[in-house]
């Protein structure tokens, strides 16, 4: 699989449209899934996934292979998602933003409101940007801390620290309303 991936990448980088189409096709679900974890709603996630596609089309030829393709793609998605969020935040008025930041359950169009995991993800969205990025890569995409570090261009220790920080913050966040569910 990795082999095929590499082959397609080289072709796409060299102007092979079919290979590029296939590359996007293969990774689109990942784009959407990660964007959804970051943003928590379908419309935004679809916008971000499309934005990633566009950025990928524009920049694939310049990808020099300094890191693995997957790391590069993760980075594209993470950046696009955060850009989107910043833009959206700017658009909203401060009051709304504050309200959204502090409202853990509700506000977002959760598709499985009563699903514990869904609600925990909602909590994740309130975390600081870098922390959230690390959580999405490790828990949504199942990356090791090392791999996540490559995608985020930081050290492995930094990722571990973010994950640790995320757990601490989430525990605190969740301790109040439904702590019993999560705190062992």
């Amino acid at each position, binding site marked *: 699989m990795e082999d095929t991936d590499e082959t397609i990448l080289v072709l796409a980088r060299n*102007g092979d449209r079919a290979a590029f*189409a296939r590359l996007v*096709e293969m990774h689109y679900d990942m784009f959407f899934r990660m964007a959804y974890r970051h943003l928590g709603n379908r419309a935004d996630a679809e916008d971000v996934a499309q934005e990633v596609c566009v950025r990928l*089309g524009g920049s694939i*030829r310049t990808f020099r292979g300094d890191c693995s393709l997957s790391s590069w793609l993760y980075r594209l998605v993470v950046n696009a998602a955060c850009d989107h969020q910043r833009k959206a935040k700017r658009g909203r008025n401060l009051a709304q933003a504050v309200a959204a930041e502090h409202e853990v359950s509700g506000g977002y169009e959760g598709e499985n409101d009563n699903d514990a995991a*869904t609600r925990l993800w909602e909590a994740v969205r309130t975390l600081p940007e870098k922390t959230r990025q690390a959580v999405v890569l490790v828990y949504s995409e199942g990356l090791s801390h090392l791999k996540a570090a490559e995608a985020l261009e930081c050290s492995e220790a930094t990722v571990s620290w973010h994950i640790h920080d995320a757990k601490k913050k*989430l525990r605190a966040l969740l301790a109040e309303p439904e702590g019993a569910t999560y*705190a062992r």
Partner: protein
Amino acid sequence: MHDEFEILRQARPVKPSSEARKKALAAAMTAYDEADEKNVSATQGSDTVKRLLSKTSNGWRDIMRKWLWTGTASMAVASAAFFVVGGMYTQYMRDSGLAVVQEMASHPAGGAAFRNDGIVPIAPQPAPPARKAMESMVRAERGVAVAPAFVGNYPSPVMDRLPSSAQSRDRVREFKGSGVKSVAEHPVSTYSADVDTASYSMVRSLLNMGQLPNPDTVRVEELINYFPYDWQLPETRDEPFRPTVTVMPSPWSQGRKLMHVAIKGYDVIPETRPQANLVFLIDVSGSMNAPDKLPLLKNAFRMLVASLSPDDKVSIVTYAGHAGVVLEPTSASDTATIYAAIDGLTPSGGTAGEAGLNTAYRLASKALVEGGVNRVMLATDGDFNVGQTSDEDLKRTIERHRESGVFLSVLGFGRGNYNDQLMQTIAQHGNGTAAYIDTLAEAQKVLVDEASSTVFPIAKDVKFQVEFNPSMVSEYRLIGYETRELAREDFNNDRVDAGDIGSGSSVTAIYEITPKGSPAALISDLRYGKPQGADVPGEAQGEYAFLKIRYKLPDEDESRLIDKAVTDDDEVEYFADAPQDVRFSVAVAGFGQKLRRDPSLAQHSWEEIKAMAASSRGNDSYGYRSSFLSLVGLAQSLDRAAVAPR
């Protein structure tokens, strides 16, 4: 340690809507194309003309890149002369966007048939048809193969004559003839043996479709070497071949002579034939779904399997979207298993050539027969995508395996997409031959009648060097071999790769020479050149030239040398006195040069070529020579059609 946040991993997956997905993919393609347009304008005007494989250091990829992004005809003229080819190129590219067409076959036989544009840019289609491509890819991914409509059919005459070629994407390298050389300035001519025959089949296939080939793509030496000849065999087994030289008056130029050099390799008798370990590497990409491709290929391989001995080994690897092993090394006696594997091949998906190649090499090494013949036989319509590594890496891969004893041959199928140059190059680096198979009869010729030469090499890295005697010869012109020219110093360099000769195959080279003092000389003597002929040693008097052939036995790394002086003894007074096979090969050489529009043959008519071939047809047991005659007739009629409107 228990991780209470593991629950995050189990969150219900959310699926994107298919509409959003489609929109995003289309947007991706648009962005991709826009980026490409920028590239086109950025890279224009940076090309240089590339020449001759052996002297070229630039890789296929760079050439390919320039080529793909070259949108203008003026650029094309510069780059088309050599290496108008590349590996990374797929159906999708062809369907839309910047497509590049080879001149060969792109014009109907009309007034423009001999223009030398090389490349015709096709206007990009406005809407990127992302969906169509996606659908076909999805289909390929699911492994739902579309049943080929013509399984079991061979190309019918009707198929062969379909009006075709506005869409033809055959990529065949163009080159100029090597021209007349002055012996005073260039006394030595060096080139690599060529036993490939692909050019003849491609020319035939085009003529049968009513088109003259692009003159600059016809490889005359491959036309000549297509036919079996009865050259003299070596007396002992120790030397794999011996040269036969004939000097005769040139049938197409007054005052010039032809020097005809022929060698034939000894035939490995079936009983002493080494055990063979063959890996068929078969392209099953979507483009192979045509009656003259996969179905023909299947029949060809069935015939080859039938001609193997029971202790030979056969494996099959396919490549399309990904490479897969279809048949692990299997004894050739187990024909049922092998046939079943061949029958099960269906076209699907894109092309991942390099992954396939690696898999094929792995199988070949697994079943390696020490002292036997180990060969990967790549069958493709030309879409061979160079994968993750650079072209240099690919060449190295092929060369590394060649050194470990696994050789590579290429069988080309189908028209419209054939990447002749890449295939030639791959075969040359892998010590193999490149053949082009357009009909079942051709498959029979390459894989059965000439199986031993296709499969069993008797000499490798065969190089020719001819030194002309300036006191006898003032000018010479090598007919064909333009793409096989070597630097003079490469002759003695054992590390320089060259052509290979298979069991029983023959190699013929023809020079047109101008004797000293003949009024036919084109180049005048140098005023300040030293007087010629004065310092030629006594024993060399009366020698036209000195021929040297360097070669290695298949399992040796040291070259051996065969040499021969060409003297009056090799000369015949009249063309008609030359041996029959010599005359026939000269007729074929005339045909090839005529197709190339060589000025030397302007006064030589198709009729004369036909008459020459007809009188030297011999017993022609396979009918190859008779079909050559009808091909000359076909070319003649097409040539008239092209000339008449003027």
